[in-house]
């Protein structure tokens, strides 16, 4: 079960994920990120505080947009991941490609610095 919330703040877009991302709903995540790209957002934050689990399908979604983020110079930050999910990103090596912060404050601070 997954619920995705989009909130637009002054200068950035926050995507909140709640629940589990697996093969059955990864397409929803894909759509949300695609919409954000189409809307030409330059700053995208992902709130992973309530993200319980992410499967390889979900990871694949993030991974497929890396090039787009780079080409369009989009700042993409994930924050608030729990230990387990963080570990998954770390083992795969995605933490070397995506900026991952622990808290919302840290993430927003990075935005300001970007």
């Amino acid at each position, binding site marked *: 079960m997954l619920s995705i919330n989009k909130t637009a703040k002054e200068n950035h877009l926050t995507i909140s994920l709640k629940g589990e991302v697996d093969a059955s709903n990864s397409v929803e995540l894909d759509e949300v990120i695609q919409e954000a790209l189409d809307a030409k957002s330059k700053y995208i934050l992902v709130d992973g505080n309530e993200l319980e689990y992410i499967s390889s*399908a979900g990871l694949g979604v993030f*991974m497929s947009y890396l090039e787009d983020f780079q080409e369009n110079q989009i700042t993409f930050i994930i924050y608030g991941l729990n230990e387990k999910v963080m570990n998954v990103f770390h*083992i*795969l*090596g*995605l933490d*070397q*490609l995506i900026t991952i912060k622990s808290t919302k404050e840290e993430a927003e601070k990075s935005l300001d610095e970007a």
Partner: protein
Amino acid sequence: MIVTDGFWYSIFIIVRFYMVKLPQIQRGKIYILLATLSWLALLLVNLIRIFGEVNQMEGLISKEITWILEILFFIWLYIFFNDAINKNENRNFIDFIWRAASTGLMATGTSFLIIFFYYLLDDSRLSKDPLLKNFFYHVNFAVASIFLISTALSWKYLILYQRSKAIVQQWQAYEVILLISMFFVLIYQESFNYGFMFGLIFLIIYGVILSINLKWIPYLTFKEKWKSILFLVIIISCTVFLFLRLVAYSQQNIHFVNLSENLFLLGLFVFVLIYAVFSSLVTLFNLPTSSVFEQKLTEAISFQKLSQSIKPGENEEQVLDILMDSCMSAAYVDAGWLEIFPTEPEESSKIHLQKFISNSERQEIMELLKKTAPFSAYLSNPSIERTEYLYGQIPHEVYKSVLIVSVWANKNILGNIFLLKEVKSGFNNEMINIISTFTGQTSISIENYRLLNEAIKNERYKEELEIAQRVQRSLLPSELHHNNCFEIDGFSAAADEVGGDYYETYQFDKENFALIIGDVSGKGTSAAFNMSQMKGVFHSLVQLNLQPKNFLTKANNALSRCLEKNNFITTTYYTINTLSKQINFARAGHCPTLYYSVENGCSRFLNIKGMGLGIVRNNGFEQYLEEGQLQYQPGDIMVMYTDGIVEAKNNENSEFGYDNLKQLLDRFSALSAVEIRKKIIEEVYDFVGRESLPDDDYSILVIKFKA
């Protein structure tokens, strides 16, 4: 007298004995021969007696001989005709009735000839000769007997057409009664006593009871019914005429042997007459309803055609064809068509099997229907509520009543049948019922046909899946290469029929080995295919004996071109040199290897930097990898595994976890590789609470170093 009885009886037995051995055709001729002989003997005996009477010579030949000869004559005739009819059982009813009528005509004709002959003779002396009269009497008697017996046996065939135990028993009882009545004359020699009357009335009543078996009549067509009425009238007339003739003879003659006062003959007269009268009346009264019966027969045949399964090579159209034909003939429609709804949303309905109506007329009627209730509501929303049929009037000059029947298959509406009649209220309940039945049966046939096609398709899918399974099984190694310096054991299970886990070994030479374990993102057939690409890449690159980091870089290059956009593969690649006891390895995003060191007395995860294959699809990949190196000692253990193991969930949805795995290896470090592997899997199953992990593929490879 006893001597004469015995004499004839023994002849009877001997002949009967020989009868059994002879073939059918011969039998018939012999019976006829015997009958003719009996008749001739009868004639001779009677003529001699009359000659004696005329010339006042008494008691030359007893009357018993006459009766016995008469009985024999009847018996041979009966057997002959019984045989002849049994031989020709395949003829139809009309033939039987005609056969009886023609025999009657023949008998009557003969009788007429005799009358004519006497007319010609006028008042001559010859015409008064008692011997000649008796001769002709015997001829009349013979033809009457032939007619009666053959017709009675024709009736037997008709009565027994629909055999039931009761009817067969009835007839057999009747035959016994007839036989007894033949011999009656021997017992009661005077006619018209109470016994005789009682016997005659009994035969009349029994004849009436038999005559209600008229179940063959409905099967005649309209024309055949007319013919049979004609033939039956002929039979009735002949019967009456012959009876009167025989009576006339007995009244005319002085010197006379009355053959016709035989209960058997009279019984047959009665039976033949009553049955013929009943049949002709019932056939006559069935004439107006015969078309209904024929209609029912046609409907039954249509139903059978509709319920036959659609054969391979045919399609639904043919069944719908038959359905339209059946419906149209069942209701005697004046016009009709079948509208089939489109299967693709773009197409329009197709009109099939339009009969007796032009396109423009049809469109006119459709327009009218859309405006007339109750059709208007239905036509605008055909699949909302399941309506089986709809009928009513329309204000059209030609067509006054309309019946619309919907055809369904598998809860989807296929189309509508439109039937039109020129009369008002043209569709009665009977017609609507039978049409609904036809349509229902057609739906079943079409559903079965579609289900069968689906089942065939599913079989194909299953077969394809089995092929993918075979491919996937071939991905896993049949043997794990090693030498005496280390033990190795592996285990892998897939969540679906095919999975995305992979491990393999390669032997360079006596001391050098390569090992790989990998996990493709996702599950099922696509994961398995990606995995087979990984295997191909491994087998090509491993021959180059590259350093692990180099190996993975090149693998990433190759796979970046093969993998789909969202797919990646995690893997760890190891090289082992048992001479130098060195292990080199690099981790492409895979679960970190668990290593038990004897020196430290505990296990740890080999956490080197890594990046999954297919995530960075350019030259920048290499920088994300770190290469690791180890010197192993005897007793050290290396456990390689996929995330299915550590992510296995129990009933409370908590994962097995890395710590558990580490503790297990510490606990079982003294065991052999095989036992360690088994123990770990056991513990995982225990944790999960079942003997398989349904959510993910899981694999484990255990290596224990010995020397």
